[in-house]
């Protein structure tokens, strides 16, 4: 029999805990819809330039570091899985396993950022940061630089979202370990999970679009 998932306490504007939970869930999904449009504008920029300069984009894409990207994708997928387990633990009121799982998910998120950091520094070293020191051995240098501008901005914005997620998950981990904030009140964990899964979905689309436009030509 599943344990209670409804909070005992709820805010004054609501009539009952179920209403509050429904409102919070809807609110988080609307927020995620705004995030889709937020990232989406960058996807439009990518699409427009890839349609116009397919060759430059393909060649530029081959300069991305696929080992880093692939590893990072796996790291985020595993982190999402761990987060799903955490939500389950919260629903069953298991606060220590919940905290542990949250810490693991946060650690994996931090791993993503560390790998990304190494990747960025490699790319700067190879001259792939747009600007004065950009260098690349591609025929259409201008649009290869365009590709990398989009790469840096969209992965940067994504990394910002990952950072926020890691901080929040770790914070919730501490609260789960040291307080009973989430006893019979798993909604915050569930909503944080929605955010984290969304961040994962964005990367799931970014990975092939940025790293693997044309890997089959050498």
């Amino acid at each position: 029999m599943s344990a209670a998932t409804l909070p005992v306490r709820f805010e004054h504007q609501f009539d009952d805990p179920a209403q509050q939970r429904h409102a919070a869930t809807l609110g988080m999904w609307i927020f995620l819809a705004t995030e889709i449009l937020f990232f989406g504008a960058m996807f439009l920029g990518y699409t427009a330039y890839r349609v116009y300069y397919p060759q430059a984009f393909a060649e530029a894409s081959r300069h991305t570091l696929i080992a880093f990207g692939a590893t990072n994708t796996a790291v985020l997928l595993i982190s999402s899985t761990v987060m799903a387990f955490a939500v389950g633990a919260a629903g069953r009121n298991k606060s220590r396993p919940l905290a542990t799982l949250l810490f693991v998910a946060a650690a994996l998120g931090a791993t993503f950022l560390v790998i990304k950091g190494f990747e960025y520094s490699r790319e700067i070293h190879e001259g792939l940061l747009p600007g004065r020191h950009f260098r690349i051995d591609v025929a259409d240098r201008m649009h290869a630089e365009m590709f990398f501008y989009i790469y840096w901005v969209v992965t940067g914005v994504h990394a910002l979202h990952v950072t926020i997620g890691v901080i929040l998950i770790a914070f919730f981990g501490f609260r789960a370990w040291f307080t009973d904030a989430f006893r019979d009140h798993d909604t915050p964990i569930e909503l944080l999970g929605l955010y984290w899964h969304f961040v994962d979905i964005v990367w799931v689309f970014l990975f092939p679009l940025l790293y693997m436009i044309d890997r089959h030509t050498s």
Partner: protein
Amino acid sequence: MTAQTSATSHLSPFPSHAPSPSYLSVRHTISSWLLTTDHKRIALLYMASITLFFFVGGAAATLMRLELLTPQGDLVTSETYNKLFTIHGVVMVWFFLIPSIPTVLGNFLLPMMIGARDVAFPKLNLVSWYLFMAGGACAVFSILTGGVDTGWTFYTPYSSTYANGHVIAMATGIFIAGFGSIATGLNFIVTTHTMRAPGMTWLRLPLFVWSLYTTSIILVLATPVLAITLALMALERAFGVGIFNPALGGDPLLFQHLFWFYSHPAVYIMILPGMGVVSELIPCFARKPIFGYHFIAYASVAIGVLGFLVWGHHMFVSSQSVYAGMIFSVLSFMVAIPSAIKVFNWTATLYKGSISFHTPMYYALGFVGLFTIGGLTGLFLAALAVDVHVHDTYFVIAHFHYIMVGGMVMAYLGGLHFWFPKISGRMYPEWIAKLAAVTIFAGFNLTFFPQFILGYLGMPRRYHVYAPEFQVLNVLSTAGASILALGYILPLIYLSWSWRYGRIAGPNPWRATGLEWTTASPPPKDNFETTPIVTEPPYQYDARAPELEPA
């Protein structure tokens, strides 16, 4: 049990229990206002702020119209003039029009109209206001330190490379304020979905709620695109790399696509709430149920959805593909249809109604006429061939001012007057209010009708000089603007006066239908003494309310 846990704990078991104190008198400290989570107080915080911004934007317009009295550029330099129209546009669009009805009337009334105690996320509501103010502070900083001359549209590559001025500060201000709007929209959507009182089904909602709901959907889906677009433009400006600059292989039209993907729906954010107000005013002052409730409700949603499909009509002469232009043109004609449906329904509501000419009705009728003119001229602009001729002329300016000022601002004033007794507990003096309404109507038409002619004759917008043959019409327009300004100052004076000294209004001075009128004026903090239960459709005017007695 810790916090209040029962929906009925605030109910009194004794009918003679004294009524709760009003939301205004609960506490009087500054922190009780600046840290309030009461949607009604937050509405007043917004009302004060947007009024301030309205006069900032109005001041810029005043200087522009003064310059345009003469064909030569003799009052200000061209660069200053460019900064003036940019400030006017930015402030009026993002810091007045977009917030206005939703954050003032919407915040105050939405929970009451659906029978709720507050919005779904009251603390987020307060955060919205602070985001708005922080954004406004950035914008004011940008203005005070020299301003921006790119136009409110920030077209690249000018804005991202060559423009002088504090573009990044201005963009940051809009970016931050945008998140305030997103939060408000999110709050309204969730509130409408989850907090309706028992019996308040979707099709019993007041039409104002339908329009706020649609507006909120546009807010949450369109504004994020603006945010990222301004951020990309700012990055391009700050770091000299980017995607909008042709010198770097970029496409300036990409900026325009992204910008207008937000900014066209933004105009529907601005007008839909005004239409919602008119849908409340006309039934009340015609003493008739609204004609075609379902049509108006669904037309609101249709406007919201179709409004996302037409943005390319701002780019007909931009070198956008002519085939895309054709698609956008057809869709722009289509988006006029739901608006027209609303106008027909309002008119049909008036037919055989028992019409009384109180101030809100003046504004509502003014809206219907002026919005129709503005909307019809939109069709001129939607026609590709005509647009080639009138794009970037005063015709466009007249078109959108007819909708935004002749429509939206009049709806806002009409709504303010209609709900003023509810918000403040007092009535305003009718005679001066009517005088102000007539002054505004006359001043408005004198200001903007000549601009249709000017635009058609070829006077371009955003120039501080013009050909001498346009002077007469420009002088008429400036004369109208001074009358309009007087008209706007009057409500500022008499509504402020009435707040303290107006006649006590009572719960329902207009004998209007709607849950907000069933509670005290001003309302108690939790809006209702007992949670209302809804059993009837809205606007049951013939059925119950007798002939309106003079206020």
